[in-house]
């Protein structure tokens, strides 16, 4: 069974039909909180599957997955993409930090959500809204409950219930009304805000979360044919794109006890601006105010890790959808000569363990820790030799993806396309190890040479760079730090005297300087690092661990597989690394790795994660 259609092509969740989503989506373990009432933050780097998770919660997908009707839905979600909402108008900065900024921010957000709520009602409860008793009640509720609230918020237009037709038309009238309020606010007031530095008076309506949105949802939920106790989930995607006032407004919503009725499910790319609310000293915290789901797994360990099992299920679904009943291991074989050579080294360790005893605790520890690094050392006899190591095989691909599904799918899609070309269009049954290696090395090189140099940033990052003069300078320091770490880890890999040669992370025992902290934060946001914590040796508290993305393994010729040791680095190492990575390499070459780092042997009961 073969296919020429690329099973790894990445589609945006919005472009997928509900049946495609339900067919392909596999819930990540530990995301059960998202299915239940309660505010939840879903954090993950770009490509980790946040939007897909939220799409899966859409009522169309839930009905299909659980084979239920609209009135049997366990919850009803309303989706808003903050990016598409275009909320962060530069003119609003004029009001930042002022009470009026918060009020206007809430008003704009509420306008958008009202329209989305009504869209959802029209789409899901279409037939319920057409029933005569529902229409009658809807009209009454609009006239007696909803319009008075709009008026109380400053809406002044003339209204007559004669304007209202059937249930769908009532929804559309409400949407048009809110649309116009939004236009008036933006095109009128916000535009003037940008063009006049003197304070401006706004006399238009100001719609609020408690004053309009929640009451509207209550009235909609009370209509005949709609489950009265139906939990409502408001899904806000990419909330990092909110400005500071808007973020505080959202936090204030999270702080409110509405979860028996409305729950907020908020996705971020780990650069959420603040957890403060608008009240004095107010702050939202987990688990008191919300639960958190972190979609990025740092635990990419040996066989049986949850990420590996999950990814295998996702890939198998994708392959099966196209009639390809092939195991991913078969589709992505490792270079056969390399496998044989590493197996020979493994046999050597097993034999030596029998005669001389294992170097580590068990023979298998030696096999696991040293075989591949020994092979990598062997093939790197000269500069070009480093490139004889092949980054191929399903296991290596999993580890190189660093726990983010997008970082598996994108390279896999490219490999598949190249294999099709190599096959002259004939179906693909296997992806050549050479192609796998080439694509992974290209991507790794690109990460250093092009992406870091042409990296896109949000202005929010520039605004929190207080210890680095500008964004360009910060990116250069990040590149320096990445280069220094990669070079250090490579030197450790080649040092056959070391007990653990696969090192991929650093432990921050000393609190780094603010400048270094900013660079690490930038690296985490851009996907070069992931952060975890580990129990402190003295048993008191936890220590920060910064993990280099395994996507850079091909660039630095590192072994990406399995758990690895970490370096306990000094403040001096980090400070030198960001300013002068060559001096770090020079000192390690002349005085050894331990001259200003201290490697710690990894305990295999390591927990990982945040």
């Amino acid at each position, binding site marked *: 069974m073969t296919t020429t259609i690329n099973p790894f092509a990445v589609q*945006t969740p919005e472009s997928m039909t509900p049946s495609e989503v339900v067919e392909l989506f596999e819930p990540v373990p530990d995301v059960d909180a998202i299915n239940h009432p309660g505010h939840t933050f879903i954090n993950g780097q770009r490509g980790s599957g946040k939007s897909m998770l939220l799409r899966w919660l859409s009522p169309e997908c839930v009905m299909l997955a659980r084979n239920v009707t609209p009135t049997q839905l366990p919850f009803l979600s309303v989706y808003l993409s903050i990016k598409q909402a*275009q909320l962060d108008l530069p003119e609003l900065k004029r009001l930042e930090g002022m009470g009026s900024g918060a009020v206007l921010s809430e008003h704009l957000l509420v306008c958008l959500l009202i329209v989305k709520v009504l869209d959802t009602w029209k789409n899901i409860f279409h037939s319920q809204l057409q029933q005569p008793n529902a229409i009658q009640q809807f009209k009454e509720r609009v006239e007696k409950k909803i319009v008075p609230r709009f008026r109380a918020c400053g809406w002044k237009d003339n209204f007559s219930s004669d304007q209202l037709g059937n249930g769908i038309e009532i929804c559309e009238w409400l949407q048009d009304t809110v649309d116009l309020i939004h236009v008036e606010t*933006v095109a009128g007031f916000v535009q003037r805000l940008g*063009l006049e530095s003197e304070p401006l008076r706004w006399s238009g309506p100001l719609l609020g979360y408690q004053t309009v949105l929640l009451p509207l949802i209550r009235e909609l939920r009370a209509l005949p044919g709609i489950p009265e106790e139906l939990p409502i989930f408001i899904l806000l995607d990419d909330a990092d794109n909110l400005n500071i006032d808007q973020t505080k407004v959202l936090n204030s919503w999270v702080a409110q006890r509405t979860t028996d009725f409305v729950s907020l499910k908020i996705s971020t790319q780990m650069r959420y601006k603040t957890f403060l609310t608008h009240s004095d000293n107010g702050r939202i915290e987990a688990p008191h105010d919300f639960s958190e789901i972190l979609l990025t797994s740092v635990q990419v360990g040996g066989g049986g890790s949850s990420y590996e099992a999950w990814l295998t299920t996702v890939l198998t679904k994708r392959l099966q959808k196209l009639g390809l009943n092939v195991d991913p291991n078969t589709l992505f074989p490792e270079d056969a000569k390399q496998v044989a050579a590493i197996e020979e080294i493994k046999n050597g360790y097993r034999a030596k363990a029998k005669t001389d005893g294992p170097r580590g605790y068990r023979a298998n520890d030696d096999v696991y820790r040293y075989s591949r690094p020994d092979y990598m050392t062997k093939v790197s006899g000269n500069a070009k030799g480093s490139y004889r190591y092949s980054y191929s095989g399903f296991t290596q691909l999993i580890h190189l993806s660093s726990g983010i599904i997008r970082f598996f799918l994108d390279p896999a899609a490219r490999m598949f396309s190249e294999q099709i070309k190599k096959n002259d269009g004939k179906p693909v049954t296997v992806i050549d190890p050479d192609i796998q290696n080439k694509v992974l090395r290209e991507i790794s090189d690109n990460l250093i040479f092009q992406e870091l140099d*042409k990296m896109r940033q*949000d*202005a929010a990052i520039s605004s929190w760079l207080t210890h680095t003069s*500008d964004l360009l300078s910060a990116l250069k320091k990040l590149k320096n730090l990445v280069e220094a770490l990669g070079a250090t880890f490579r030197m450790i890999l080649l040092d056959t005297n070391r007990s653990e040669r696969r090192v991929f992370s650093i432990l921050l025992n000393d609190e780094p300087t603010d400048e270094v902290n900013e660079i690490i934060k930038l690296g985490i946001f851009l996907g070069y690092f992931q952060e975890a914590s580990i129990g402190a040796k003295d048993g008191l508290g936890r220590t920060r661990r910064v993990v280099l993305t395994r996507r850079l393994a091909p660039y630095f010729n590192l072994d990406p597989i399995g758990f690895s040791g970490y370096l306990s680095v000094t403040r001096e190492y980090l400070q030198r690394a960001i300013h002068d990575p060559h001096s770090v390499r020079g000192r390690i070459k002349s005085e050894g790795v331990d001259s200003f780092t201290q490697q710690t042997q990894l305990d295999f009961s390591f927990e990982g994660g945040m």
Partner: protein
Amino acid sequence: MKKMSALEFAQEVKALQPSTFITCASFESRCVEIAKIISEQTSVKTLCFHVDKTCASTQKNRTEIAELKWPAYKEAGLYISNPLASSDTVLRSVSSLSASEANAILVDVSTFTHEHLAMLIKALLNRDLLRFTHFAYVGVNVYGVNPSDESEPLWLSRGAAAVRSIVGYPGMLRPSRAVHFIALVGFEFERIRVALDESEPGSVSLGVGEAIESVTPGHYSENKRFYDKVAAFVEEKSANPSFIERFDFSCIDPKKAKQKILEIAAKHVDCNVVLFPMNTKLSTVGAIFASLDEPSIQLAYVEPVEYNVNNYSSGIDGFRLVSAIELSGEEIPMSSLFSAQ
């Protein structure tokens, strides 16, 4: 729109007798060309903007402009990363220009950023000075030479620090509508890619310069190359073939560019139209006037991380001149402060 030699342009300027000259000093050497001609032909009050992240070549050009013969000369600093502060500076600077004294205002649009140029035009409109304004432009022979990288022989800027609407052009976005993205593609891929990623549009119209309406044939072939790259990216992102529409526009005639944009926007009246002008400043003038004519269009900008300051452009390829009246067809649109809808 006629391309003129330096001599022809000088004669036009002399006939125009502008009372005010507005320009922007930049790292590009062409920013002094029109200033030199103006200072030799007329006696004008001059307002020279410059961007805060100055580099040696900007400083040099700024000094060269300042040392030309002006009866009155003012400078004002603008910001790449602070649009509100830039807008305030532009408004303040323009407010000192007197409508009663205005004969003609000549703006050298060549080396403003797209964003700052839009702010300037809005400020002139709000002071009722736009009807006196003429826009001048210096074409260049070669853009963005990159001798160190064969894989990308041309680069103008790198990275994208922010994507935002331009102050004064927020559009009339309706929450119930999807975004329709319009871009006038120039010589940059990264900024448009980021703009697309950030906007998440429901549909896209991509514009490429027409061959006969490009500054030079060489520019056309480069423009086409970047356009193809952007189009391939958009197609890869969407399985829906009707997601992307292609159109040609004029890089040298703002009136034609404006008409084309309005034509495209009119096909998407049920969408929130967001417009990214990223080609010549002449086509950007057209985009700005399209937004003034149709305030529902949001004008947007992608702030780059860095510019190719050493090799952004070289060589001069003629001068062009157009009046605001010509662009608006006799009627300058009312200041948007008085027409919110």
